């Protein structure tokens, strides 16, 4: 095959030259597997401690590292074409839009009713006692 596309970064030692096809070494796959299993162990250990709201950040941080390893090496996106990288990684961009607006809604709600059936601050029929200042 005459094409030599997408081997832009050359090939690391132990990796074969397959033209446009990237073949990773078994040693690399094994290191990734061991790293993933080790990070799973860390996830379980960290969950035994109470760091308050930081627990969520820590758990999602470790999960993101694991996910990056799977995407980059098992799915070999690291060695894939620029357009494939763009297409797949753009899904996380759109996902962040969903998260930002969802969490934006959450943080502008009042969750103090016992059923958590909350009303927006702009609803004039409802005011939280602590916000009553006698103007009404």
């Amino acid at each position: 095959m005459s094409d030599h596309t997408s081997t832009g970064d050359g090939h690391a030692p132990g990796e074969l030259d397959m033209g446009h096809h990237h073949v990773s070494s078994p040693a690399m796959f094994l290191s990734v597997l061991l790293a993933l299993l080790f990070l799973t162990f860390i996830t379980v250990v960290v969950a035994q401690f109470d760091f308050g709201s930081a627990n969520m950040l820590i758990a999602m941080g470790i999960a993101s590292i694991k996910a990056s390893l799977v995407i980059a090496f098992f799915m070999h996106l690291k060695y894939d074409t620029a357009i494939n990288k763009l297409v797949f990684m753009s899904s996380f961009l759109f996902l962040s839009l969903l998260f930002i607006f969802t969490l934006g809604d959450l943080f502008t709600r009042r969750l103090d009713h016992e059923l958590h059936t909350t009303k927006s601050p702009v609803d004039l029929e409802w005011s939280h006692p602590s916000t009553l200042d006698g103007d009404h």
Partner: protein
Amino acid sequence: MSHDDHHGVMIPAPGPEFVAHEVAHHFSTPVQEFQAGKLGFWLFLATEILLFGGLFAAYFYFHEVFPETFRVGGQQLDWRLGALNTSVLLLSSWTMAMGVRSAQTSQKSKTMIYLVLTVLGALGFMVIKFIEYSAKNEHGLIVFSELFSGYDEVTGQVAWFKDYHGVMKDVAHGHMFFAIYLTMTAIHGLHVIIGAIAIIYVLYGTSKGRYHAGYYLPVDLAGLYWHLVDLIWIFLFPLLYLVP
């Protein structure tokens, strides 16, 4: 390997146990066929991320609204089974990666062994999942026979949430955690089953000698799907079993 501008470019078989691949007539080169297949599949995987992303958004929302419900709910799941299932999926992701590599290097019997191991991983995962679901059914946390029965007139609760042992009685809307748990793990489990079917399909093709260094696209795509299943579970495990 050589090809010209005529229709039906042939990729020759690298050995007697393989068959030659004819590039589909609407592609002019093998590389074009390979890259078109990959691009389409990555696009599909992007939509899968968005499908699960909606469920994750629901998780984060209700986790914030009912933190106690999620904390107590998470304690009802056995994190050891969750960790076991995580390890099973990670191992099967590794066997899949090795299977794709064996196909890329025209090692037919090795490819088949790795693909069989991956399917066994999928089976193991579903068996463990079944054990977990059965326990939830027994404790009345997810009564599967009542799943589509609507609301219970007496308790005013969803009919599938009986909570026989009262483990969720001190928290608001105990069923919320299990609704999210069931929805996320069931859709994920569906992907495990579809992934296993895809792998069995390429396993059959491998046995026929269709996949080798010159043409391994279907093995590669089944692999990408399987890694996506692993990718989703990497986030589900800490969120559901070790509720932060």
